[in-house]
């Protein structure tokens, strides 16, 4: 049976014989965002996993703060913080197996770090260094994607390709509430459903696309309701409840892995910081709103659960914070070193084989640099494809 032969494959039939392709009822999302922390369901959770998530959340919060600070020191060109959204970031990373792929958007540095990327490499783009500062194959993390929603069809294609090859690989793609309005969102979800590709879409609905609130973005009951229009299940989850997000994503990943096809997950969360360090959030939202969300902080929610159940004490909290500080210190230290970029590398990766035209232009730049007394650090005569400078 090929991937495309689906059970009950539809043939058009006149209305008397018409049937829905699938039963819509099971595709509809929960009536309100799923919560686990603070509910009886939390009792069944693995304490080791919870502890790990706690450490990652604390580290992630610190990472967001440190990266934002680095923008003020001119060490980062820009930083779109995921402060307040750490539960989504961490749960996304932890829901995957090593062979799976993560497709982050430009805001998801943290998810990439939680998945194993070096915290400095993850910031390469944002510090103004090369566009992708890591080998995507190493941790199966696609480049941070800036054009909104365009990474979603990539995730579908990769998952589809893996399935065709018979590999056990699931792709998890992240997108914002604003990104759901793009045509690429629609096309990706439709392809995924038609191909039954093993892919999970996680919408981090943080209430805003820069300044535009959700009410101007959609009139849907919830973003998760979009799923039924593609014939895939929609799930709605409290995006600040790391256990709930992790549970929903793990279920969706398992469903995909077992051939069940894609799932759309909406995590309701909030962007506590401005859009980026360059944004002024007071222009479009009130402090009161922000404060209301602060009372629903993802770290606090988990901390409450863990301390309440005796799984975390003052020492544990201190330990987590200290680990986060160490990470931050290391990040600060390494980010304060100036990266060494080779201008000649501009011509190296445009094509597999450099064209005559680019050779000529490379020669021009090389001559200019030499004339200016700043020869290329790795000045090679041919400027042909070469290993990346840090590999």
């Amino acid at each position, binding site marked *: 049976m090929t991937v495309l032969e689906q059970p009950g494959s539809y043939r058009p039939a006149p209305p008397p014989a018409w049937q829905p392709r699938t039963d819509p009822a099971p595709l509809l999302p929960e009536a309100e965002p799923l919560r686990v922390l603070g509910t009886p369901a939390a009792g069944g959770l693995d304490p080791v996993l919870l502890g790990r998530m706690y450490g990652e959340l604390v580290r992630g919060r610190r990472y967001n703060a440190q990266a934002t600070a680095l923008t003020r020191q001119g060490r980062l*060109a*820009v930083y779109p913080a995921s402060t307040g959204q750490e539960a989504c970031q961490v749960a996304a990373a932890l829901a995957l197996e090593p062979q799976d792929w993560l497709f982050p958007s430009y805001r998801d540095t943290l998810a990439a770090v939680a998945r194993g990327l070096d915290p400095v490499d993850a910031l390469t*783009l*944002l*510090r*103004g*260094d*090369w*566009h992708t500062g890591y080998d995507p194959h190493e941790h199966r993390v696609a480049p941070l994607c*800036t*054009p*909104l929603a365009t990474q979603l069809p990539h995730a579908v294609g990769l998952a589809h390709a893996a399935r065709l090859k018979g590999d056990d690989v699931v792709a998890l793609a992240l997108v914002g509430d*604003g*990104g759901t*309005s*793009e*045509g*690429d969102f629609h096309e990706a979800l439709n392809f995924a459903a038609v191909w039954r590709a093993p892919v999970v879409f996680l919408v981090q609905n943080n209430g805003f*696309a*820069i*300044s*535009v609130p959700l009410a*101007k*973005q*959609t009139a849907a009951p919830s973003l998760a309701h979009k799923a039924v229009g593609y014939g895939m299940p929609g799930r709605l989850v409290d995006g600040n409840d790391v256990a709930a997000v992790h549970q929903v994503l793990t279920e969706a990943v398992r469903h995909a892995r077992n051939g069940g096809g894609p799932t759309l997950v909406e995590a309701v969360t909030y962007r506590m910081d401005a859009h980026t360090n360059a944004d002024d959030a007071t*222009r*479009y939202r009130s402090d009161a709103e922000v404060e209301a969300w602060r009372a629903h902080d993802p770290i606090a929610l988990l901390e409450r659960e863990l301390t309440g159940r005796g799984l975390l004490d003052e020492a544990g909290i201190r330990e987590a914070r200290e680990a986060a500080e160490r990470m931050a210190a290391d990040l600060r230290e390494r980010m304060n070193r100036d*990266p060494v*970029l080779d*201008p000649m590398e*501009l*011509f190296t990766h*445009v094509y597999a084989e450099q064209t005559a*035209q*680019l050779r000529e*232009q490379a020669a021009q*730049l090389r001559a*200019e640099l030499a004339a200016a007394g700043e020869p290329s650090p790795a000045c090679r005569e041919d400027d042909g494809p070469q290993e990346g400078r840090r590999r």
Partner: protein
Amino acid sequence: MTTAAVGTVHRATALAQALGRALRDAMAEDPSVHVLGEDVGTLGGVFRVTDGLAKEFGEDRCTDTPLAEAGILGAAVGMAMYGLRPVVEMQFDAFAYPAFEQLVSHVSRMRNRTRGALPMPITVRVPYGGGIGGVEHHSDSSEAYYLATPGLHVVAPATVADAYGLLRAAIASDDPVIFLEPKRLYWSKDGWDPERPEQVPGIGRAVVRRQGTSATLITYGPSVPVCMEAAEAAGAEGWDLEVIDLRSLVPFDEETVCASVRRTGRAVVVHESTGFGGPGGEIAARITERCFHHLEAPVLRVAGFDIPYPPPMLEKHQLPGVDRVLDAVARLQWESEWTSEGGVR
């Protein structure tokens, strides 16, 4: 308001603000002008160009749309069909690409398709070009795509006065205008007075920004200041350069350009966009076709390298600067060097 106060104000008017002023004045004069785009309302746009418009004219006149560029431009087409004059903001150059089909297959052709029945008085504002330290997708010079699409006007101001005047002209135009705003000049100021805006001729007229006799630099948008600086520097080397600011690429002001080149006999086209297949090829070819026997040297081009726009830390190598312009001028065969080349003549 005293003259002194006006002086204080106008010296402080940056290009981005002049654009905002143009939008405001156009909206005040003509109720059919509507602004739409991502974050143009409450926030006033990521570059604050539309700041205050939603407040002054209401959210129905200056509208935060859902995040979907094809949808924005497609809706603008329908609005134009109903007699409105939509001004669309694309947040950055590369984020106009999702709207490419609407632009090429509809905006540029609707008038022609309907034999004039459905004109498309749409202005598409595109903050464009590099030099602002923007991460990937925030520094594209995409004018080549628009140039090659009949039915569009393509405009790129370089001064505060032109920013105001050309945007007014674009909005007033019954044809679609791609309005390329040089991001890197958004905060530049040049003494423009918003209370007495100087008259800018309509779309399609180049201007000689500096008169000279030795050679002509032909440029537009963010490369205009570079060429002016190069022309100043060239004086020291004995060259008296003329600088033409095209202001609009379509329609192309062949008359002004060719008149200059026929006089100087030498020309360099300068732009930030990649060279291969870029505007410089068209301009150089056109000059050569029309002024061949006046040319002392081939028309040269100074452009971005034929590579994807570099990361911020390397972008200085991509941007055509004064040195590259002067290098090109130096290669305009001032000596008898070419005769030694063993050419046919």
